[in-house]
C-alpha cells in the first residue's frame, strides 16, 4: 500500500509538473500581459510596456520564470496577480471552496439521480421505463450547458421567481448551477449504471442471493450495486476533469466566484501567475480525486485491496 501511494504521488508530481509546464509555456505563446494591462488606453509607448514587463519579471527567459514559479509553489507562494497584485493564493483560497462545493454537489446530485434511474432501467431492461430513461438521458446530452443554464434561470428566477439567478449565497443559489452540471453528468452516468448493473445482474451470485430469499431491494442495492460501482467510480474520476471544464461555463452563467471564473479571466487577461496557480491547483485536485478513486476501488472491491 505504501509503495502504491508513493508511486501515485510520484505520478502526481509528474502530472502536475507537466501540466504547469504546458500551460505556462502555451499561455506565453499568445498575447503579452503588459499590453493587456495597458488595455489599449492612453498613449502607451514601448518604454511603458518595457517598464511593466520589468516590474512583472517578464523579461527573464522562460525557464527562469518557470523555475521561479516552481520554487514559489514549494513554499506555497503562487505569486501575485498581474491584475491588481492580489496574491494568487488569496484568490484561490476564495475560489477553490466555491468550485469544489459546486463540483461535489453536482456529482452527488448526479449520483443520486443516476443510480436509482440506472438500476430501474436495468431491472426493466427492454421495457418502456428502460426506453424512456435511455431516451431522456440522451436528451440531457443534447443541450449545451450554458443554454440549459439560461433556460433554468428564465424558468426559476424570472417566471417563477423562486431562485436567485446568480451568485453564491444561500443554499438556494446552489440549486440551478448544480442541477445544470448534474443533468449533463447524469445523462452519461445513467447509461453507465444501467450497463454495469445489467452485467452484474447476470452474475450467478445474484441468483444465489435471490435463492437465499433476500428481498429485491437487498439484492439490488446491497449485492448488485456495489459490484456495479467500479465502472461508475472510475468514470467519475475521469469525469472530474471535464466537470471542471464544464464548470468554467456554468460559473460564468451563474456568476459563480470559482476557479473557472478565475482561470477564464486569467486567460483573457494573460494573467500568468493566476492561470498557472489555478491550473496547478485544479490539476492537483484532479490527480487527487483519481487517487481517491483508486483508494475507493479497494473499499468497494476487496479483490483490488490486496494487490
Amino acid at each position, binding site marked *: 500500500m505504501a*509503495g502504491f501511494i508513493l508511486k501515485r504521488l510520484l505520478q502526481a508530481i509528474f502530472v502536475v509538473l507537466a501540466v504547469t509546464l504546458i500551460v505556462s509555456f502555451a499561455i506565453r505563446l499568445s498575447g503579452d500581459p503588459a499590453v493587456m494591462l495597458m488595455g489599449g488606453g492612453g498613449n502607451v509607448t514601448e518604454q511603458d510596456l518595457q517598464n511593466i514587463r520589468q516590474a512583472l519579471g517578464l523579461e527573464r527567459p522562460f525557464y527562469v520564470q518557470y523555475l521561479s514559479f516552481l520554487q514559489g509553489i514549494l513554499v506555497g507562494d503562487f505569486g501575485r496577480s498581474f491584475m491588481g497584485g492580489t496574491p494568487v493564493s488569496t484568490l484561490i483560497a476564495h475560489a477553490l471552496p466555491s468550485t469544489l462545493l459546486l463540483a461535489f454537489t453536482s456529482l452527488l446530485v448526479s449520483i443520486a439521480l443516476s443510480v436509482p434511474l440506472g438500476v430501474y432501467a436495468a431491472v426493466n431492461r427492454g421495457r418502456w421505463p428502460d426506453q424512456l430513461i435511455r431516451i431522456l438521458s440522451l436528451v440531457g446530452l443534447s443541450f449545451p450547458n450554458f443554454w440549459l443554464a439560461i433556460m433554468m434561470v428564465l424558468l426559476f428566477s424570472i417566471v417563477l421567481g423562486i431562485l436567485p439567478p446568480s451568485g453564491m449565497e444561500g443554499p438556494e443559489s446552489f440549486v440551478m448551477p448544480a442541477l445544470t452540471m448534474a443533468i449533463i453528468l447524469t445523462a452519461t452516468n445513467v447509461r453507465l449504471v444501467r450497463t454495469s448493473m445489467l452485467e452484474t445482474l447476470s452474475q*450467478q*451470485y445474484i*441468483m444465489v442471493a435471490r435463492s*437465499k430469499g433476500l428481498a429485491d431491494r437487498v439484492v439490488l442495492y446491497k449485492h448488485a450495486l456495489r*459490484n456495479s460501482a467500479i465502472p461508475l467510480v472510475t468514470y467519475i474520476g475521469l469525469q472530474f476533469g471535464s466537470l471542471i471544464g464544464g464548470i468554467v461555463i456554468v460559473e460564468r452563467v451563474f456568476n459563480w466566484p470559482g476557479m473557472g471564473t478565475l482561470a477564464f479571466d486569467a486567460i483573457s487577461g494573460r494573467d500568468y501567475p493566476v492561470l498557472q496557480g489555478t491550473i496547478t491547483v485544479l490539476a492537483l485536485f484532479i490527480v487527487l480525486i483519481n487517487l481517491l478513486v483508486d483508494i475507493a476501488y479497494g473499499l468497494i472491491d*476487496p479483490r483490488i485491496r490486496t494487490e
Partner: protein
Amino acid sequence: MSDTAAKPASVHAPLLSVRSLSVEFGSRDSAFRAVKEVSFDVMPGRTLAVVGESGSGKSVTSLAIMRLTDYTGGRIAGGEVLFRRSEQETLDLVKASDSTLREIRGNDIAMIFQEPMTSLNPVFTIGNQISETLTLHEGLNARDARLRAKELLQKVRLPDADKLLDRYPHQLSGGMRQRVMIAMALACNPKLLIADEPTTALDVTIQAQILNIIRDLQQEMGTAVIFITHDMGVVAEMADDVVVMWKGDKVEQGPVREIFAAPQHPYTRALLSAVPRLGSLKGQPLPKRTPVIVMDGGVPKQVGETHVQNTADYAKPILQVDKLTTRFDVGKTFFGRVTHRVHAVEEVSFDIYPGETLALVGESGSGKSTIGRTLQQLIEPTGGTVRFDGRDMAAMSQGERRRLRQEIQYIFQDPFASLDPRHTVGYSIAEPIIVHGLIKDRKAIDRRVQELLEQVGLQPQHAKRYPHEFSGGQRQRVCIARALASDPKLIIADESVSALDVSIQAQIVNLLMELQERRRLSYLFITHDMAVVEKISHRVAVMYLGQIVEIGTRQAVFENPQHSYTRKLLSAVPIADPQRERAETRIEGEIPSPVRPVGQEPAIHRMREVEPGHWVAIEADQLRGAA
C-alpha cells in the same frame, strides 16, 4: 411410464412433488419451451439425481422449483410444484406469493450452484454472506449469526473457521468456496437442498471431498437432495433415485441401480454407453476405440467401430523434451525486483513418438497447460531443451519457428473461448492456411475448409456460421478442423474434451483417434479426467506441482500405480457403477502452492524405473502434502 410407478419404498409422503411443470422463455408468441410437463417426487431424506445432456432443462427445472426463473425472463407455463412445508401445510410454489417464496427460499429450500467461483459475491466477506441468511430467516442478531456461521464452516470441514469468516471469496480456492456455498445453503437446515452441478468445475480430488461432505451432512440432518449433474459417475456415487431428462422432457425415472442396470429409454442407454469407465481396458496394452450410441433426432444410432489403436511408431521420437523448466515472475517490489516465482514446470523430460498419444494428467495448477503452451511457443521456457524432429527449438531461426507453429497445433479447453466470436468458423479454419501460405488460391482454400469440416463430421455450409451458432461439441469439432488445417504432426489437446457432455466427449475422442490413425498424428493429451486418459492414451505422465512424478505406458500406470499421488488421483475418480461399494477413503487437504520466494528452489525428484519404461519419482517423505 407413470410418475408414481418409480416411487421408492417410503412410509413418508413426498416432500416435493413436481407435477407437469412447463417453463418457457421468450415472448408469448415465439416462446421457447425449455421444460415440458415434467413430473417427479422428492422423498424426505433421499437424493434424487437429475441427469441429462447440456441444455436438457436440468437447471431450468431446478430454478423453476424455487421460482427463480422469474428473474431470468422465464415463465412457468403450467403445472404445479407442491412443497410440504410441514405435516399439515402443502403449498403450490407456482402460485405462492412473493413474500411466501422469500420465506421458503434459503430457509426450507436451499440451492448450491455450479460455479463456486462466481456463486459468492466478491465484495462481501464470507461471514457476512452466511449470516445474511441467518439474520433473515432465523432472526438471529449479528453476534449469534456469526457464531452459527462459524459452526457451519466447521461442519463443512473448513479449517480456521474464525479467520475465514472475515475473508473475501477471492482469497479462497474453488473447493473452499464450494464448501462455503454448502455451509450457506445448509445454514437454516433446509428440508430440501438443490445442488446444480456442484462439483463440475472442481478437480477430481476436491470433487471427492465435496461429495463426501454433502453425503455426510445429508445423513446428519436428514435433508432431501436434488442433485443435478451430467457425470454418471457422480450419480452412481450419490443418488438414490434418478430422473433422466432429454430436450426438456423427462424420459426416464427410477432407483439408481435399476437405471444403471436396465436403462429403458434409448437416450439413457446412449448416455450410459458413452460414459467412460475407469478400468474398462484392464489388461489391454493399447488404447481402443469403441462405438458410441448417439441420438439422431430421437432414434438411437450406433456410430464408430471397435478398433485397437495400434498407431505408435517407437523408432524415433518426434518430440523430445529435456529438463524443461518454466517459471513465472510474480510479486514485485516497488522497484521492480521479483520477490516470488511460480515454479509452474520444473525439469520435466519426456518424449512423444509419431502416432502416439501421451496423456499428461495431474490436478489443476500442476503445470500441464504450461508445458503445452511452452511447446507451442506461447511462453518462453526458463530452461531445458525441446527438440522437434531432432532439431533444437532454441537454435531455430524465426522462419523455422514459424513453421513449427504449423507442425505443432494446439487445441484449447474451451472451444467457445478459443474461436474469435467475430469471424465465421470458415474464416477461423482458413486462417492457418492463409497465414502459412499453404494454399494460395481462394477457391481452393474454400474447398479445403469444406473438406476439413466434413472430416470432423460437420457440414460444408457451416463455414458461414459464427461460433455462437454452434453447440459445444460442434465448436470443438471446429477447433479440431482448424488444428488439422495446417497439416500438423503433433497436436497438443489441452483439456479439449473436459467441457463436453459425455456422449459428445466420446464422439470427439473417437474422432481424434480416427484422425490419428488416418494421419499418423501424435497427441499430447492434457487432462485431469483419468477415465478419458485410459481410453485414448498410449502412455501417461502424471504431474504434481510442476514435476512429473510417474510416467509409463497407460497399462503400467493404471494397473500398477506406484506414486501415492497417482493412486490418490485414481481413487478419487467417481465410478459409474452404483453396485460398487461407495468409496470410504477420505481425501483431505488442499494442493500446495507452486509459488515460492525467490531463491527457494523446489527439490527435483529423482526417478526410478519400476519396470521397463515405467518411471516413478522417489518419495522422500511419502509426499505428506498429497496424502
